[in-house]
């Protein structure tokens, strides 16, 4: 079982449980109390700094790397209320659409990773690839340096349409936690631009695999290769002797990009929990 389903699922996939989205709108000030430790919201460059420190540590040797990794995992747990350094998870389109039915308000925002990695600034609504969730977003103006380009509020239907559009473009969806038991965003990622994804694939922490795994129906697959082009994880390759898609399920994150991109409906998602060899591979 996924660590968050165990803790906060209440018998369902944790990110479909409405109890993992709410937040109070106001906190009364209390005199003589130090401000809370900075979390993801307060330190939007956290990922970037973390990734940089890991790269630095790699150059110094394996011991330094392990120590830095542990420090970062513990730090994430402390600041973000995550467990074992996990604070995001891959989500297929169908579940992302269910998530936006639960979360509100929803605001389209610029992706900080694309700014960091590509120098790209998403300043208009059609460019934006990140979505902030929850009442915390109502205070976005507190961090103008993070929310360059502002926030475009969207309805549930608009949010679904936006997700479908990004899915078509080949972005995988993932959720982000901001504080214990609080899902605060849906990112639309691609490797290696996405810092969260890069931290998982390059350094082995930060983002959990999703609740599904892709399978191919070889009778339907015509070997067009679109799925392999869309896979962010190197889990999908074309067979050398047989012109069909092959899925390495140990590498599959269950994001479903291959499923939504397949023109013949030859790929489907099955529940990770139903596959004995994969049910504890997160």
């Amino acid at each position, binding site marked *: 079982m996924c660590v968050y389903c165990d803790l906060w699922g209440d018998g369902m996939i944790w990110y479909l449980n409405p109890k993992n989205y709410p937040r109070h709108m*106001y906190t*009364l000030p209390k005199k003589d109390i130090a401000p809370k430790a900075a979390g993801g919201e307060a330190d939007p460059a956290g990922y970037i700094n973390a990734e940089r420190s890991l790269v630095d540590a790699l150059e110094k040797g394996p011991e330094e790397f392990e120590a830095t990794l542990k420090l970062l995992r513990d730090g994430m747990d402390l600041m973000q209320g995550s467990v074992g350094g996990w604070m995001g998870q891959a989500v297929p389109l169908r579940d992302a659409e269910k998530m936006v039915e639960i979360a*509100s308000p929803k605001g389209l925002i610029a992706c900080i990773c694309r700014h960091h990695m590509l120098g790209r600034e998403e300043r208009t609504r059609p460019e934006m690839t990140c979505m902030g969730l929850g009442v915390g977003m109502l205070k976005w103006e507190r961090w103008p340096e993070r929310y360059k380009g502002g926030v475009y509020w969207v309805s549930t239907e608009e949010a679904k349409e936006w997700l479908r559009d990004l899915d078509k473009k080949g972005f995988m969806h993932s959720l982000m936690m901001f504080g214990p038991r609080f899902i605060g965003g849906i990112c639309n990622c691609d490797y290696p631009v996405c810092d969260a994804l890069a931290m998982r694939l390059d350094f082995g922490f930060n983002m959990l695999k999703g609740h599904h795994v892709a399978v191919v129906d070889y009778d339907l697959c015509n070997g067009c290769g679109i799925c392999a082009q869309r896979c962010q994880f190197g889990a999908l390759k074309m067979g050398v002797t047989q012109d069909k898609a092959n899925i390495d399920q140990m590498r599959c994150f269950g994001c479903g990009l291959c499923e939504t991109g397949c023109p013949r409906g030859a790929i489907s998602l099955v529940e990770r929990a139903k596959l004995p060899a994969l049910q504890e591979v997160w």
Partner: protein
Amino acid sequence: MATNSEKEAKDTAYSLFVAPRPYSFELSAEMLELLRKEFDPPIIITKLAEAVAGKKEAEIDAVAEKILGKYGEEWMKKTLQLGEEYPDRTYEMLKEAADQTGELVFPQVLQRFIEIAYLSTQQFRVLPIVENWAHRLVYKVTNCYTFKTLQEKCGSDVAGLLPCRHACLTLCRTGWEGLNLDAMVKMEATMMKDGYCQFAIDRV
């Protein structure tokens, strides 16, 4: 290298969205004080204690429903009024988001007024929200000042009947009616059984 016109375009776009810093995103202290003065729990609980003195258990609830029900209604009406008269930047942004999306009056606008009502009369700094989505708003009241005052002024037996629930239930009802919403409220947990009260407002 960016040309002058590109640079100008960037600067223009940014200035549209970067807000001036002096905005206050928090609740007005003056508004909270006005509500506290009028709806401080000891005021109404003293009135209740006088009204239920010497009454039997069956009568107490009816008396409490009348007194605390009216209190809850006036408490929320005043909260709705002052909450509009003392907007903060969080609320302005919420209204902007609600206008743009055609959503959010339920639950977020209702949530704001419920938070104001409790934060102005209780001794906690945060009202814990358990669920807030399109169909449900659920919040819990722990360490309740009204309940504690009830225990002190009326004794544990009367407090155990939880007559104060009438105030909270009417508060919720007045809140959604004031926002032209249809909903229903139920208690999912009670102070006596669970150590806290939990109110669930379901949109109908």
